[in-house]
């Protein structure tokens, strides 16, 4: 009884586990049950049950309700899809004059609107692209294809790479000095010399449209949410789902609505990049103390001035993290966006992988990472730059960067012009080094992969076989063996113990949505892979993070490594991993661990960093050893922050499990992939994405609630 009073939570947990296992053991696996390979809708089988709701017929295999719930939400994806189709293809048809065929054509309104919005985006993308690479579309937008055909001189020439490089260097110097200037120069020269100029500029041109738009929309919506509780309440659930929804699931609906091409790529990139921007803006504005606002009001600011001159500058730090996130997300979408028509590095990377040319794909991938880091550093430097209001500068001092750039343009143009004589019969290397004429270490990398194969294959094979037969297969079987009722009880019970009735209700809603969808078995497989990935990632991240945090140089180095891996397209290492470990769950999990270890490491480092130095000193003075201090003081205090890292690790792990569909999985991801060609793909892709998001949100809810309580307990809030 004493014990019970002392540790009430512990006993609650014990009780929950007992109930869970009792349910598991008392409910037998139905004899007819087997992991459904194909979806029931493909086959008409007399053993299937059917029901019709809202005019949609749903077919499924019925089991004991305690074992698997019937898919009562099975009509939802089809309904969503049909509504989408209706909206796009049938709702409010209007007559539009088609200039090309010289006749009126009936087009539904929404289709026309989406195409018009995207035509505007295409214009922006092409404008930037043609400044960088040359072309005719910008001119065509103001004239016509016939006109350009008769006046070929009007084609934009495109900037030679020398000028763009000089521009980047000067910009880097202006923003933050020598260091950034050198880095910018190196990145640009690397891109050019390795023959990645054209695809890089193509990628850059769509990101230079997507990132600022995401920033503007994110900031605006964030400010609106800050000003109005109603907006915030409406936005919050959408934001949560969007943040945890795998990017891949957005592809299909986006494609249905906006078609394919660079514009669609911009749209899905924005969809993914805006939510973190909103959240961070909101976070930053909230943290502004009321004294600052009072001071602003007293000096007679109107609302607009208060926002732009007081609130946003004060909240700059968080807004900056938002900018960083926007850029990272935009580049991490570079490859996925290639699936719906983004030209550039992402597409080249996919093509190279299709030929198993890992070296070539690696080079393209490195370009993506390096441009991402360069842009990130530039935008941070720009935002941190203080305007010098008082400087008394001469004309030259004030305009020296502009002058230097003008000089660079002149020299670059002369070089490019001279180049057109120098390299008469081949390519003008002073203007653009073409794709296949640069230096390439592809062969070297490919040989490296071969070497790894020859050296380690046998060992890896033994490990792989052991892992699959002894760990993964049993674990998967255990997850599938859980009766639905037991799982629901476990999740809801955990919610109740951690966060009381409110959390219990939220988690119940989330888990029931998945349980009532047609994809419960698939969701279990997704969860099994994510669980394994999260455990491994957290172990690695915690160890590496703690070790690196002991020294400021290793800390810096590790954070840079995290940056690279976050933007480096995972598709590149998927292929060698597949060759080494076969088309198995091991391959998927390795990719998951590589990706999900990033947030685990990052948050461990940041958590430990946030422990006040005064505490360190106090501990050292009371004579504890370094290890004791770490275990007894730093970890407990950094723990809440590190748990948020776990939260992110779960999200990252789920994203990667879903992308693992490209290797070959049997989970929700495979169905999202399948939605691309499915008749009802738009709706299914969306609902499947929501299912994945809900898995993440269950953990998110539990962890966040727990962290809040813990923080209150520790008095750090």
């Amino acid at each position, binding site marked *: 009884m004493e014990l019970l009073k002392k540790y009430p939570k512990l006993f609650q947990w014990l009780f929950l586990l007992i109930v869970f296992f009792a349910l598991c053991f008392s409910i037998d696996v139905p004899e007819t049950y087997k992991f459904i390979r194909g979806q029931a809708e493909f086959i008409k089988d007399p053993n299937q049950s059917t029901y019709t709701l809202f005019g949609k017929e749903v077919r499924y295999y019925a089991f004991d309700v305690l074992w698997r719930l019937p898919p009562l939400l099975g009509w939802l994806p089809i309904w969503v899809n049909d509504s989408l189709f209706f909206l796009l293809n049938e709702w409010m048809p209007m007559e539009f004059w088609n200039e090309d065929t010289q006749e009126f054509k009936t087009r539904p309104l929404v289709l026309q609107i989406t195409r018009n919005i995207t035509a505007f985006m295409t214009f922006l993308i092409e404008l930037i692209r043609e400044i960088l690479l040359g072309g005719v579309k910008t001119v065509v937008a103001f004239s016509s294809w016939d006109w350009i055909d008769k006046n070929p001189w009007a084609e934009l020439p495109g900037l030679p790479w020398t000028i763009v490089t000089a521009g980047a260097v000067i910009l880097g110097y202006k923003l933050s000095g020598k260091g950034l200037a050198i880095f910018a120069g190196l990145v640009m020269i690397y891109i050019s010399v390795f023959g990645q100029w054209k695809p890089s500029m193509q990628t850059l041109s769509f990101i230079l449209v997507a990132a600022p738009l995401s920033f503007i929309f994110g900031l605006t919506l964030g400010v609106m949410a800050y000003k109005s509780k109603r907006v915030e309440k409406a936005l919050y659930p959408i934001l949560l789902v969007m943040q945890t929804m795998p990017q891949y699931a957005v592809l299909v609906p986006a494609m249905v609505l906006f078609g394919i091409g660079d514009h669609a790529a911009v749209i899905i990139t924005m969809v993914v990049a805006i939510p973190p921007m909103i959240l961070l803006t909101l976070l930053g504005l909230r943290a502004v103390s009321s004294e600052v606002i009072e001071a602003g009001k007293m000096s007679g600011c109107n609302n607009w001035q208060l926002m732009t001159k007081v609130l946003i500058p004060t909240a700059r730090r968080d807004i900056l993290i938002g900018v960083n996130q926007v850029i990272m997300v935009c580049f991490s979408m570079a490859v996925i966006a290639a699936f719906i028509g983004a030209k550039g590095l992402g597409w080249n990377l996919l093509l190279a992988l299709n030929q198993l040319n890992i070296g070539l794909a690696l080079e393209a991938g490195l370009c993506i990472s390096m441009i991402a880091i360069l842009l990130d550093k530039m935008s941070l430097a720009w935002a941190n730059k203080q305007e010098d209001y008082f400087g008394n500068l001469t004309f030259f001092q004030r305009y020296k960067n502009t002058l230097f750039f003008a000089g660079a343009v002149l020299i670059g143009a002369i070089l490019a012009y001279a180049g057109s004589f120098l390299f008469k019969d081949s390519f003008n290397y002073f203007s653009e080094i073409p794709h296949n004429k640069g230096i390439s270490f592809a062969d070297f990398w490919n040989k490296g992969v071969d070497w790894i194969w020859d050296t380690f294959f046998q060992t890896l094979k033994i490990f792989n076989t052991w892992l699959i037969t002894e760990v993964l297969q049993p674990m998967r079987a255990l997850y599938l063996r859980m009766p639905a009722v037991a799982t629901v009880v476990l999740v809801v019970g955990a919610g109740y113990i951690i966060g009381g009735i409110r959390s219990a209700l939220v988690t119940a809603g989330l888990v029931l949505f998945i349980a009532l969808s047609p994809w419960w078995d698939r969701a279990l497989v997704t969860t099994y892979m994510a669980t394994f990935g999260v455990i491994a990632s957290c172990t690695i991240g915690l160890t590496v993070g703690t070790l690196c945090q002991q020294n400021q140089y290793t800390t810096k180095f590790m954070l840079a490594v995290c940056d690279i891996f976050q933007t480096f397209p995972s598709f590149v290492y998927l292929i060698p991993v597949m060759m080494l470990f076969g*088309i198995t769950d091991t391959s998927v999990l390795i990719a998951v661990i590589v990706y999900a270890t990033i947030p685990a490491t990052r948050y461990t480092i940041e958590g430990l960093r946030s422990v006040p130095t005064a505490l360190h000193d106090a501990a050292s003075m009371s004579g504890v050893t370094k290890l004791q201090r770490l275990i007894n003081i730093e970890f407990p205090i950094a723990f809440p922050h590190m748990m948020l890292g776990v939260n992110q690790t779960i999200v990252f792990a789920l994203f990667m499990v879903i992308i693992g569909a490209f290797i070959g999985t049997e989970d929700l991801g495979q169905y999202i992939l399948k939605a691309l060609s499915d008749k009802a793909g738009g709706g299914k892709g969306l609902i499947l994405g929501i299912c994945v998001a809900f898995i993440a949100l269950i953990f998110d809810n539990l962890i966040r609630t727990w962290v809040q309580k813990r923080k209150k307990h520790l008095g750090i809030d």
Partner: protein
Amino acid sequence: MGENMKKLISLLSAIVISFVSFTGIALSADSKKPIVIPTHNWSSQVVMAYVIGGIFEDMGNNVEYVPADSQAVYESIRIGDVTISHEVWESAFGKSFTTALDKGGLLDWGDHEARTLEDMGYPNWVAKLCPGLPDWNALKNKDCAKNFVTPDSGGKGRMLEGPQTWHGDLIPQRIEALGLGDLWTVKFAGSADALWAELAAAKKEGRGTIIFNWTPNFTDGAGFTFIDFPPYTAGCRPEDGGDGKCGSPDGYLKKAVNADFPKTHPKAAAMFKKLSFSTGQIGAMAALVDIDKMTHEDAAKKWLKDNKKVWKKFTK
């Protein structure tokens, strides 16, 4: 939607419509508006895209290439985001193609001379692991199946099928129907890349593998044999009400166009209707990239230069 939003949209639409509107021209000549050709992620298709683009350009048309998913492209053609598709494989994309055809907006624009086969098969060195191949009856042999066991196949021989996107449960159903279910299991790879990775890994390791593949493809050159399943007859597949005990059909390789294409580009459309490549020609295009390691654009240029006779006759 607020009043402002509506205003904004109508304003945007107005701007955009004025941006994208083009002056009308007499319909006898082709519009100068670019013909949008999709590129997918396998070599022969990309090279052929540039080859066809090259022919269009030679006729004075403007061309634009857009990367697209090979399944989703038919919906895009139907809506008009993409103008043509030049490789519609019956077995893999037939379903998406006919779905779009039924919805309207997409036209069937004739077949290539090349016929296609998409089925399970094996690289030639595997034949000795399983005597009796390519006849499917060889698969009934226990000693054959055990050469294809993998850690996660539960003791059965494993066949690697393409993504479930491509043919749903066709192969697992066929294996069950033919009574091979006790010896064999089917695993779905997630992408074509995964198939090639498996092929390369199996070759390096010298082990057996049975994968889904197609012809014409770059694997033709290295030696790849398809398993002879019982012949395909109309309606033999489970989705058509059959028992599923049959292999893949000798399939078409079609072309498709957006319904407006013949109106806006009558000459280009006429050329594209006549255009037809043989298996050998397609294989040669792919080989320039996969074996000679040229870039797709360069390969297309070279092919066009070397085969003027072949393609000039389509333009007449």
